[in-house]
């Protein structure tokens, strides 16, 4: 094969993936960018170039700022606890205990449920007074709370539900990682008289780092991508206390018909996610302990 032919061959091999990527990822990104600098066109008022007007609007838009802040808290609130919980559950169901299969299944069940179904269940959990949570709290003499109707409680309530939904999924990755850790390490550590905690902290946890990186990336991305539950539970309310960026994009595009402003917020979200991804890959390339 001549080098020229090899070149063609290489491009041909790349083509299917490249076409899909360009058609469904890169071109939409460019189109979004373009539409964010035009006004939304209607038959009555055609679109015109408005430059960075939409981006200036962002700074003055209290709902956008609140949605962005909410998203930040939502990310912090869901990612760290769900990873910690996933590790705990994985270690627990990795032990040789009776009913292990059932226990694993039980932890994994929330993941199987569609988010909309889960949100519908939690809607009734969170219902003041007659909901499951308030009924359990009532046993301890606590009076009912308006979980989804109180601006201070609504975001934490959503975070708790999301952790419940996500942790089981991450557990699967940790379980696989735990099973690939050679048992000799544990035997050696026991011979050395290491405590369970120092074995976990000095041996298991570092060996889980690649998994943690993977899960962290996924969990963070998810915290910006999850939006289904808002449709059922709060619609971003009360007064935007639980509004998240993606839901605000949906509202702007399909309820306000302002596609160009929606494109603007989408660009912000894209840049944010790209930066996050870059930072993580750069950071963890140095820290992660690959065997």
């Amino acid at each position: 094969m001549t080098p020229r032919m090899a070149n063609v061959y290489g491009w041909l091999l790349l083509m299917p993936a490249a076409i899909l990527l360009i058609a469904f990822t890169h071109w939409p990104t460019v189109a979004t960018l373009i539409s964010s600098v035009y006004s939304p066109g209607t038959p009555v008022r055609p679109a015109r170039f408005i430059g960075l007007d939409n981006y200036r609007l962002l700074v003055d838009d209290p709902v956008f700022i609140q949605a962005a802040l909410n998203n930040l808290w939502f990310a912090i609130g869901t990612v760290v606890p769900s990873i910690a919980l996933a590790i705990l559950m994985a270690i627990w169901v990795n032990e040789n205990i009776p009913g292990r299969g059932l226990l694993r299944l039980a932890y994994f069940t929330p993941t199987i449920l569609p988010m909309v179904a889960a949100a519908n269940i939690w809607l009734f959990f969170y219902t003041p007074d007659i909901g499951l949570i308030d009924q359990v709290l009532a046993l301890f003499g606590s009076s009912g709370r308006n979980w989804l109707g109180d601006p201070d409680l609504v975001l934490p309530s959503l975070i708790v539900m999301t952790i419940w939904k996500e942790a089981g999924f991450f557990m699967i990755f940790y379980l696989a990682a735990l099973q690939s850790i050679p048992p000799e390490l544990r035997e050696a550590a026991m011979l050395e008289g290491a405590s369970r905690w120092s074995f976990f902290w000095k041996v298991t946890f570092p060996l889980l780092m690649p998994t943690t990186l993977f899960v962290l990336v996924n969990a963070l991305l998810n915290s910006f991508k999850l939006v289904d539950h808002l449709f059922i539970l709060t619609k971003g309310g009360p007064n935007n206390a639980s509004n998240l960026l993606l839901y605000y994009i949906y509202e702007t595009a399909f309820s306000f018909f302002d596609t160009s402003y929606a494109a603007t917020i989408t660009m912000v979200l894209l840049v944010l996610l790209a930066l996050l991804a870059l930072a993580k890959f750069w950071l963890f390339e140095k820290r992660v302990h690959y065997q």
Partner: protein
Amino acid sequence: MKPFRSLKMAAMAAAVGLAGMTAAAAETTKLTMYYPVAVGGPLTKIVDGLVADFEAENPDIDVEAIYAGNYNDARIKALAALQSGEPAQLSVMFSIDIYDLIEQDAIVAFDDIVETDEERAWLASFYPALMENGQTLGKTWGIPFQRSTIVMYYNKDMFRAAGLDPDNPPATWDELLTASKALTDADKGQYGLMIPSTGYPYWMFGALTMQNGQVLMNGDGNETYFDKPAVVEALTFWHALGAEHKVMPEGTIEWGTLRQNFLEGKTAMMWHSTGNLTAVKKNASFDFGVAMLPAREQRGTPTGGGNFYIFKQTSEEERRAAMKLIRFMTSPERAAQWSIETGYIGISQASYDTQALKDYVVEFPPAKVARDQLEFATAELSTYQTGRVRKLLDDAIQAALTGQKTPEEALGEAQSQADRLLKPYRQGG
């Protein structure tokens, strides 16, 4: 030979004409129609049944009725179909979408389609309150179909237990407050009244402001009255029910679970859509009543629900066929059948004059309340930029109910932002 020849010509012409006519008759007009379902229940089956009846009567018209999700989805799908060049000819969409649809140049006014006096009479045959959301710029753009109002459901057993007259539900704000206080039992976690404030807070609020003698917007859809004293007073009253009088839970009340609260006896009264009537009737384990909303200055409720629209991108035949379909669906007998099977309001006086609906109202009196209340009904909040304006009001209501802002503050801010949005739609703006 001349006469013969002309006779032959005439026969030929007649034959050609006849052939042409049969060809036209054989040619069916195809209609695509999107429709939303906003409440639970087997509504798609009922619509399919109506469409099948129509096709049986009109073999030259072929209707494809497509269930398109909730109101929001239906609008998105219909507009997307429009842009893709495979448009629907008519659709049922939210009555308050009218300004957006006009802004998109998507719909045609019925005044421009009706031809005969008989059709003009049909256009004037609906309850005026139901037409308000379908009329602007001096024309009618939407024909009422699945329409509702807000009514007050109340638990008669709880009324009796509290020593109140179960056949005499509160008719004024003062009576409402007194009754609510008597019905509230904090130890049992039982409230007197719940008005939902998620999902469609602006809708419930429209009832309160109307009762206080003030509508929320003008008929041209380019002006809102959020900061009028009567509006502020209405929101203050709503907020006080929870914060001050403790007859309603504080914070916002979830639209979706409210019916469950009522069915489980956690609230003695609830304000909700008439669309819930059949579900409450089926599931209530207690004696319940349905009443008109109470009055301050007057009684009042906004209407709600979906209207028929005809799209602009249609041929003459398609418009005629669409008119036929809409007239069939809104005919008194069909409207009566639709009302009985769903709980939506019969849209014309004539539908309540049918034997079927007359009998039903006698057998199940609550079905009459919504109709009687139409006399006091007003349009649902609908303006240009309606999604944004509605959200401004929703956020203001929720901010006030959760105590983040005072009613004056919240509504004042909403009004100044609505003014900014609506300025371009005012003359000289």
